[in-house]
């Protein structure tokens, strides 16, 4: 059975060109960039070039790029690092986030609340899952340490207007973080245009390797390291740099800049075909998240009433199609997704969620095949749900 992967929002395969770029640094170019000798210097050169390359892609300066081990770590460093630094410096105790953040942000904020005495506030979102425009000023406090709003939601694909939020924060001198792990895999991101002070990226969402990420840090942003040790990454992230993965991330990100527009242009009509087809051919279905204009170009997400979403994923997998669902979990625990619950979906809808996310090489033919079997699978699962 030929398997078709439609879960690129979960992770992507590493691009051949990225593998080629990485390979020399596993063996021959294995040096430690901190070493004095030639091996170290060669590794340091690769590190520096990668940093420059990513900085260029973001319209940033190289020393604003901190390499981490993943998007989640970048979120942790941004949230915990700036909350603790701001408390130390200004006595601030309030963290303001959107209620639909990735667990890497949400759980970090929760921990800061449970163990460090911070208070977590939530911005209102509209039914599409976008933070309500103009709502920020009502929720900011004198002691707000930072604001974090994701650029694009992983589960429902909705985009946020980061530029507006960041400008409002800027006016008040409050650092603004955005988790752009999903967003930056598709859209160009310029740090000055966006205005965010802290931006999280993860390589494996855009055909780079797993285990490497970036936190962009605007100069002047107060930040305490959360992993201490050596003085790597400008003292913000101790650890011998993982050169092969960093090189891979830089190459993958360069390819996003180079090919991103073409990828988007090709995927948007396929995505819209999925949305139209599903809503038209599957009874009791709803799109979750924003309509086409304001969602990730590769992302279509739905809920189906009275359907066991977990079983649907399993049935689709057994038919050869790999998709996911916000609430699906391999341990068989059907908790409704907190995102869908927050958006007001009752369990009879939210437990039946499906996310289809396309890749740069997904063909229209593959999607047509998938759409052909989907209504029947939904029907079969509904019969036993």
């Amino acid at each position, binding site marked *: 059975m030929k398997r078709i992967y439609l879960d690129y929002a979960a992770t992507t395969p590493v691009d051949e060109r990225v593998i080629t770029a990485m390979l020399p640094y596993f063996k021959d170019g294995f040096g430690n960039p901190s070493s004095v000798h030639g091996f170290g210097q060669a590794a340091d050169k690769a590190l520096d070039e990668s940093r420059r390359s990513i900085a260029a892609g973001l319209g940033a300066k190289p020393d604003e790029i901190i390499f981490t081990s993943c998007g989640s770590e970048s979120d942790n460093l941004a949230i915990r690092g700036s909350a603790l630094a701001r408390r130390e410096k200004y006595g601030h105790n309030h963290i303001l986030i959107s209620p639909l953040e990735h667990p890497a942000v949400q759980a970090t904020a929760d921990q800061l609340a449970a163990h460090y005495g911070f208070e977590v506030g939530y911005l209102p979102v509209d039914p599409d899952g976008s933070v309500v425009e103009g709502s920020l000023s009502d929720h900011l406090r004198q002691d707000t340490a930072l604001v974090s709003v994701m650029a694009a939601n992983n589960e429902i694909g909705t985009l946020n207007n980061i530029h507006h939020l960041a400008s409002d924060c800027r006016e008040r001198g409050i650092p603004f973080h955005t988790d752009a792990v999903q967003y930056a895999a598709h859209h160009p991101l310029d740090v000055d245009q966006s205005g965010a002070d802290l931006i999280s990226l993860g390589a494996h969402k855009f055909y780079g390797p797993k285990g490497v990420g970036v936190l962009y840090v605007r100069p002047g942003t107060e930040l305490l390291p959360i992993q201490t040790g050596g003085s790597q990454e400008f003292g913000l992230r101790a650890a011998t740099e993982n050169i092969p993965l960093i090189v891979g991330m830089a190459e993958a990100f360069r390819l996003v800049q180079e090919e991103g527009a073409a990828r988007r242009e090709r995927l948007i009509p396929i995505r819209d075909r999925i949305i139209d087809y599903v809503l038209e051919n599957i009874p009791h279905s709803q799109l979750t998240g924003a309509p086409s204009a304001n969602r990730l170009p590769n992302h279509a997400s739905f809920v189906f009433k009275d359907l066991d979403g*977990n*079983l649907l994923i399993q*049935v689709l*997998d*057994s*038919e050869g199609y790999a998709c996911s669902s916000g609430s699906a979990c391999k*341990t*068989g625990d*059907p908790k409704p997704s907190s995102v869908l619950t927050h958006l007001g979906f009752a369990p009879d809808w939210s437990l039946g969620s499906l996310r289809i996310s396309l890749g740069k090489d997904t063909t229209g033919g593959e999607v047509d095949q998938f759409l052909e079997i989907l209504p029947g699978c939904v029907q079969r699962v509904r019969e036993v749900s």
Partner: protein
Amino acid sequence: MTIPPRGSRIVVGMSGGVDSSVAAALLTDQGYDVIGLMLRLWSEKEGENRCCAPDAQMEARRIAAQLEIPFYVIDARDAFFEVVVQPFIDGYGSGTTPNPCLNCNRHIRWQFLLSRAKALGAGVIATGHYARIRKGDDGKYQLLKNLDPEKDQSYFLHVLTQEDLKRTLFPLSEYTKPEVRDLARQLDLSVADRPDSQDLCFVGQDSYRDFLRKIDPSLVKPGPILDLKGKRLGEHSGLADYTIGQRKGLGIAGPEPYYVIDKDSITNSLIIGSKSELGRDTFDVDGINWIEGESPTGPIDADIKIRYKSRTVPGKISPHSGDQAKIELREPLPDITPGQAAVFYQGQICLGGGTIRKEGR
């Protein structure tokens, strides 16, 4: 059981134990398109049901990965509570000793699993049970005892219907348990030496008695211990703490040992008596499942088994009104326990069975 064509899809109910793992391995080896499915069941303590606890799940996942078959976990907690745990609690509440495994087999391990298997494109399920299915000359499916009498699980499977049997495979039916363990070792399955599951899967570390007390303290209240004439001999700690035929732990001295003869849930009394007063040769069963699909028209002779581990005793079954029957045993048995199943056999064939009824004494 109709042997499905090679390559067709079969769902194997996997528990992470040696039996279901070997069943999956055998079918995979025979060229079937096997999907491993684990049902997530309700447990007193979240995540501790022994049939699907995290470590059992990890084992099953490991076996599936080794066999290169897909493995999925399906949530059945609500259904399991409703059709297995609640009736178990209610049964004790009415002074019987229910066997929850029977409801589980009927409603969860078959009905529920079969429906999910169907959604997954599999017309047939397989389990690691020790019993045999045969298609008779009349086209009906028969449930037979396992060849190895030491490990015959037909007692628990008497609840299956023709439709269930038609869609079920028991890949271990030709093997003994030691042979299955050997097979697991030969196949290099890490579960070869996993101990057999025991006790009630949904009750935590404590006994079922503690479980009942926690669920509903009013179920297990102290009350009088009476002899057959109604004379009060002492106090019991709660009817659920005793089983019919029990001798130890009564704490009452007498000229000869006392045995539990009956439990009267209406007056919350425990009835005890001497060994000669214990035992019956006649009782009623209801909720009978006749595997053939219909009840015999008149009385039949059969061997009757009143507990999984007890020997079979010859007797006569006289069906009456729907799914009920009167059972007359050739000899009295001391531990005929309301709530447990009486299962009927003719030779190797399991005819079906029903629940031993509580009766007014």
